[in-house]
């Protein structure tokens, strides 16, 4: 948001491109990958295909949004996958009381996890990675205890509609993700909370001295992140039409962090790129999809992912400036 470019001489100049690349490198990469697919992947531009990519990326986007906020405060949240599992485990237990009740319960679970994480980080003063590691390990255990380890099929049509229904020609999942993107972008750009969050990431002691209720803001950030993860969790349940606490959200923390960082948000905090995060998630989704469509083995998918992460982050890295 605050990247000002130095006034440069007119004409084609490298400086302009250099300034542009870090911020928009992800978009350029997406364009390249799409062009490649258009040329070499049959049926790529078909609406059905694009639709699938959007549906598949939606949960990652939702989790990554929360992660972006946390990273904006110079934190990190490893527990998101476990939160998804918790939400997933709770859904079938309360579906008997209606979809709304089940959704509310799993959101409340998200709030609670967020409160624990936030308290450990803001009040106890733990390093975010360690604070959330505890729930990363324990949270999924709790989810399995709750679900008794059983995979449960979901037959509730309202819930399934959320996962696979369409509204005005777009999947519900995509609507929900888009709405959340707008909400989070709005929070970051227009709210007091958003400004405070960035200031905390930029310099926490200074923000504290400026009279900002730093602890409250931090706790809220972790709560938002967990709630977004539990939304992703219940949407995952709705989409696969079953609740599987052992599998849902597995390793999503790494995908989410990757999306955020590839999207240009620095891990050092103080800045959040919401659209970049969406683009980062989309880029990684397209990489995987491309590899699958060309029927390449998983080993090469992983190596290509590694290379793309490095290139994207290298392009976006902060020049040393003090």
């Amino acid at each position, binding site marked *: 948001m605050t990247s000002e470019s130095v006034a440069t001489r007119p004409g084609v100049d490298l400086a302009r491109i250099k300034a542009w690349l870090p911020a928009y490198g992800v978009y350029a990469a997406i364009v390249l990958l799409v062009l490649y697919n258009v040329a070499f992947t049959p*049926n790529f531009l078909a609406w059905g295909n694009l639709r699938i990519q959007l549906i598949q990326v939606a949960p990652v986007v939702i989790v990554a949004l929360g992660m972006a906020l946390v990273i904006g405060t110079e934190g990190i949240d490893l527990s998101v996958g476990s939160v998804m599992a918790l939400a997933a485990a709770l859904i079938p237990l309360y579906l008997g009381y209606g979809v709304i009740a089940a959704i509310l319960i799993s959101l409340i679970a998200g709030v609670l996890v967020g409160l624990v994480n936030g308290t450990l980080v803001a009040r106890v003063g733990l390093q975010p990675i360690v604070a959330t590691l505890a729930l990363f390990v324990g949270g999924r255990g709790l989810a399995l205890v709750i679900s008794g380890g*059983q995979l449960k099929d979901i037959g509730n049509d309202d819930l399934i509609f959320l996962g696979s229904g369409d509204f005005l020609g777009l999947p519900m999942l995509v609507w929900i993700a888009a709405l959340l993107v707008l909400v989070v972008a709005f929070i970051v750009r227009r709210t007091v909370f958003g400004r405070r969050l960035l200031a905390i990431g930029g310099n926490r002691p200074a923000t504290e001295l400026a009279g900002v209720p730093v602890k409250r803001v931090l706790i809220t950030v972790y709560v938002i992140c967990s709630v977004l993860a539990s939304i992703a969790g219940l949407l995952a349940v709705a989409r*696969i039409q079953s609740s*599987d*606490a052992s599998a849902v959200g597995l390793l999503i923390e790494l995908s989410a962090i990757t999306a955020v960082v590839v999207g240009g948000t620095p891990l050092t905090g103080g800045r959040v790129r919401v659209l970049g995060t969406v683009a980062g998630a989309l880029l990684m989704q397209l990489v995987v999809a491309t590899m699958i469509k060309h*029927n390449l083995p998983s080993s090469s998918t992983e190596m290509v992912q590694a290379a793309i992460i490095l290139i994207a982050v290298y392009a976006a890295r902060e020049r040393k400036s003090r």
Partner: protein
Amino acid sequence: KSEDGDTPAAGGAANSAGAQVAQSAAPGVPTCTLEQFGGSKVDLKTAKIGFSQSEKEANPFRIAETKSIRDEAAKLGIPSANLQTTNANSQFNKQISDVEQMLDSGVQLLVIAPLNSDGWDSVFAKASAKKVPIITIDRKINATPCKDYLTFIGSDFEEQGKRAADKMAAALGNKGSVAILLGAPGNNVTTLRTKGFKDQIAKIAPDVKIVFEQTGQFSREEGQKVTEQLLQSKSDINGIYAENDEMGLGAQVALTGAGKKAGDVKIVSIDGTKGAVKAISDGWFSSVIESNPRFGPLAFETATKFFNGEPIPADIIISDREYDESNAKTDLASAY
């Protein structure tokens, strides 16, 4: 042939529904006696027994497997304090140290559901020093029976793949293109079920082409995702071979999402869980090859025989059922 083992043991009685049946051992298969093994006789009722589970009890197969062991022990009157169970949570090194710790604590019989077929050297060193017999269930360990371990009870995964290929070829009329949803990479089960399937297809139905193989990690969600991608790039696919039921069920959700009808794409999978067997009745799955997890009775029976001095064959291969239209409704009760 594989069709022989079709009739379940006693059929009907709820508690014995789906119990394992060992194939009659072929003559000439090496056997092992207590004497050959070199251990001493142990009374199961008072013995300390260890059971090492490999993966979390969070899928039907593992849940049924662990439950079967526990139930059978209870049935035999083994006090629950004497049955020590551990779970490696899919971490192989943890399983190794779990088993070693059980050996240290003095178990006299080990039942192991191994996470991996190789890598058991240190365990064998310890177990053979203490002369503790090891029965491995569901997955075989690459080692010497009667020396490193006593025996293996389980299915023949490669055979399961072959049978799935037979079913697939039949469902497609020996022609068409097929996608494989692979299990977790590196897993022996994945390797064998893939090999069996591919070999058999090449042999019996050369016109069935395998056009796509991607891992679905044995999970429903991944199975669904991969199938969605598959359907977009190869919409003319005729069959999907899922290396476990979960991925097959994920594929089913993906097919529904893509507007396909039941039967448009033939699904053959392996395991025999309730969900999959029910999907046969619904017309989505063509057939399911069973991989029976109820090892308890056979394992304890084998141990009892062994300690009584009877010879035990090196491999006790169970005869897995298979489900198709003909028996899916009637045999649903024996699915797990």
